[in-house]
């Protein structure tokens, strides 16, 4: 991946989008570099798997750059991209569930590109972290896709309520009630007696 030109650091997304539309690959690369981490964290919280999250980022970016002509600029590029990531992750999750139903435990999912958690010095700590991740992921899995997407956008993307509403195409009030409902369900579902020792 080409390094981002120094002049692009202060360049607003809208200008980069305009350049990317006209075929400027450096502008596309800069947009990718700016938003890849947020897109990755969002996809990871939606799917609970780093490998799948990377695949979703890749697919979402291809979709976004391929459809820049559809981006009307009413919301920010980031909000628009997050919407694409959420929808792609939802599709990905559905496809993965279908595959899992067909071939139980095929052992795939790990990738050489994805590093193990940086807790290697303390295996016990790494295991503890895995337990926490599994517990949270199970609780997230019990949410409806709508609640999960909204809560993940709120907790992970740093978007405002208004931006989340734009990303999901729902009223701000619905965003707030979904976040409230998701938080209540998560707090009620998690086994705090067991988890509190690990936190």
């Amino acid at each position, binding site marked *: 991946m080409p390094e981002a030109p120094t002049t692009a650091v202060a360049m607003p997304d809208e200008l980069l989008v305009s350049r990317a539309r006209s075929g400027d690959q450096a502008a596309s690369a800069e947009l990718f570099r700016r938003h890849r981490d947020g897109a990755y964290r969002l996809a*990871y919280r939606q799917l609970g798997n*780093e490998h799948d999250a990377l695949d979703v980022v890749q697919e979402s970016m291809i979709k976004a750059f391929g459809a820049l002509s559809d981006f009307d600029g009413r919301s920010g590029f980031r909000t628009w991209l997050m919407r694409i990531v959420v929808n792609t992750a939802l599709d990905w999750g559905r496809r993965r569930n279908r595959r899992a139903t067909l071939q139980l435990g095929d052992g795939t999912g790990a990738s050489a590109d994805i590093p193990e958690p*940086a807790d290697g010095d303390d295996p016990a700590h790494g295991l503890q*972290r895995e337990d926490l991740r599994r517990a949270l992921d199970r609780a997230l899995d019990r949410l409806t896709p709508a609640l999960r997407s909204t809560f993940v956008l709120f907790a992970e993307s740093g978007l405002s309520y208004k931006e989340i509403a734009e990303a999901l195409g729902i009223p701000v009030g619905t965003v707030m009630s979904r976040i409230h409902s998701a938080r209540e369900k998560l707090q009620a579902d998690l086994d705090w007696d067991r*988890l509190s020792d690990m936190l």
Partner: protein
Amino acid sequence: MRCDEVILELAVPSADHDPAVMAEHLAGCEACAEWARRAERLDRLWDATRPTEPTPAAWNAVWSNIAEGLAARETHPVSTTPTPPIVMPARRPTPGRWITAVALVGLAQAAAILVALGLAWRAPSDSPEARLAERDRSIRTEPTAIRSEHLVDPVVDIEAGGLMVIRFDRKSSRLEDRTPAEMNVGADIGMEMTNAMESIATPQMAAR
């Protein structure tokens, strides 16, 4: 602040409320304080489970795939023109459809007329003329048992050449139309034969 406002503010922070007022409420409300503790533990759990960032090599691989994918799109562009909505072609009316429609309308009208006639036939009539006409009709057309008191002053209209048979037993009397077939158009032939055989067996006849 009320408890529901405190919990809403904890779940969906809006910065609309004074933190000091929130803290005061939480200090005096154990239920809200417990909710706040759980919310804080969820936040800690969320932070503790953040995904590991991919390595630069992983991101480079992803970007290479994206660039490759975009290049492939440029080689084989995917149309971004919105798909036109599917418009179902209007069905052309066929002669068969018209005939069916007309037949259905006709059947519906015929059914309505029959229902109306049936209701008129069954509707009770209070006028003396109507009662008489009704009794006359039943005597003419229905050779069924009639209570003897109904025949105290029977109104029986027998046409010239007509033949009526009156049967009596202990409790009732019965009037039967025995008019020959050529005089009683539409009479049941089977009933005629039955009546003829009965009149031979019981020769109590009245004729005018």
